């Protein structure tokens, strides 16, 4: 697809959401200009309700007036439409299956458990932290296999799993800080520690993953508002 004008591509989102972050990184990788429409906390715009009537959630990508929902579905759409840009998913079906597997693992196991650390205490908290750490060790193994000595899960370039997991780094650091715990560490997950640095320094990602301090402050606002889920799509 040729260059689109900025108004052609809109992202309905909110800066703290890691799911929105995924979409923004993907668009940056493809050098696609877009209009970012920030949803106000605690309310949903008419455009959002119209564009995602089933879930009424962000992120939504609106391309040429047509809406696409669900972050990883949006990322795949971006990869397929802007096919002349750097590829996000690998071309080999088996490699694609592996990246999809770990992306689902992040969404189904790692991120939900990470969020629980915030509200858990004592033994329960320790058990959840252990669970998350074990999951991250599995991801470390996957990283070693997939990166083949290069910087990213996708090798030389940022790929699907880099985006799926990397988008969580802001909240991972914030949860580490708020909970006084270490999730990614040099001893157990050295590859991922290095990967996180490389990812956050990359041009496509810089400035998109929110600052840890800002997220900690935001988390406090969420607690005061009560009932608003922590950064969840």
């Amino acid at each position: 697809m040729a260059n689109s004008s900025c108004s052609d591509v809109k992202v309905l989102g909110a800066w703290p959401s890691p799911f929105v972050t995924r979409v923004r990184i993907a668009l940056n990788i493809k050098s696609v200009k877009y209009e970012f429409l920030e949803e106000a906390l605690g309310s949903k715009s008419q455009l959002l309700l119209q564009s995602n009537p089933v879930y009424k959630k962000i992120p939504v990508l609106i391309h040429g007036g047509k809406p696409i929902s669900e972050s990883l579905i949006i990322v795949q759409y971006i990869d397929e439409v802007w096919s002349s840009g750097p590829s996000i998913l690998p071309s080999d079906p088996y490699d694609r299956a592996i990246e999809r597997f770990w992306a689902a693992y992040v969404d189904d196991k790692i991120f939900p458990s990470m969020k629980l650390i915030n509200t858990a205490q004592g033994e329960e908290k320790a058990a959840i932290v252990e669970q998350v750490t074990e999951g991250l060790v599995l991801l470390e193994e996957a990283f070693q296999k997939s990166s083949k000595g290069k910087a990213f899960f996708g090798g030389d370039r940022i790929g699907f799993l880099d985006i799926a997991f990397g988008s969580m780094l802001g909240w991972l650091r914030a949860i580490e800080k708020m909970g006084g715990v270490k999730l990614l560490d040099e001893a157990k997950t050295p590859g991922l520690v290095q990967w996180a640095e490389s990812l956050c320094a990359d041009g496509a990602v810089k400035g998109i993953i929110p600052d840890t301090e800002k997220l900690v402050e935001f988390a406090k606002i969420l607690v005061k508002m009560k009932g608003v889920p922590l950064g969840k799509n």
Partner: protein
Amino acid sequence: MADDDQVILLDFWVSLFGMRVRIALAEKEIKYEYRNEDLKNKSDLLLKMNPVNKKIPVLIHNGKPVCESLIIVQYIDEVWKDRSPFMPSDPYERAQARFWVDFIDKKVYLPSVRLATTKGEEQEAAKKEFFEVFEILEGELGDKPYFQGEAFGFVDILLSTYTCYFHTFETFGNFSMEVKFPKITAWTKRCMQRESVAKTLPDPKKMWEVVMERRKGLGLD
């Protein structure tokens, strides 16, 4: 794809997730070896091929494992891409198909299980949720022959697996699928005309027996 491909499916006959893969393999006319797992006594092969989740289904293609039913179906579509595509070619339509696959995967299972294996208030709540989800699907199907339009595809593969449980839902939930969801009912008949679906799905009576056993085990009937 080469004829000397070795394809093994580790599965459990009752599993809706396994059925998705079986329909996909049948659609592509892929020869494979089916191995039924005893979930109370999982094989060494299953534990080796899916060490992370230790669950079926697992597709083993020339010795390499692919796990998670949706990922397996996509893999099958991408490897055996020369026949019976599961996905449309237009990126926007593909995104829509993925959206509905994801919706069915997330929203149908739990209310279905609860509708079939609870009673009283819990069942009424499950029934309400089940109806809400199926009303959305009825609306999405509309007057199209299949969910993705003219061609049977990924979304149909997913939802068709539930059709062998419709009789069970109707019986224990005390309602008629045909009355409540006429378009889905017509679509069900259409899907059952496909060999891949008709030969994969167990007899609805068998599924009813499975659920009946479960209900007895829970002391419901």
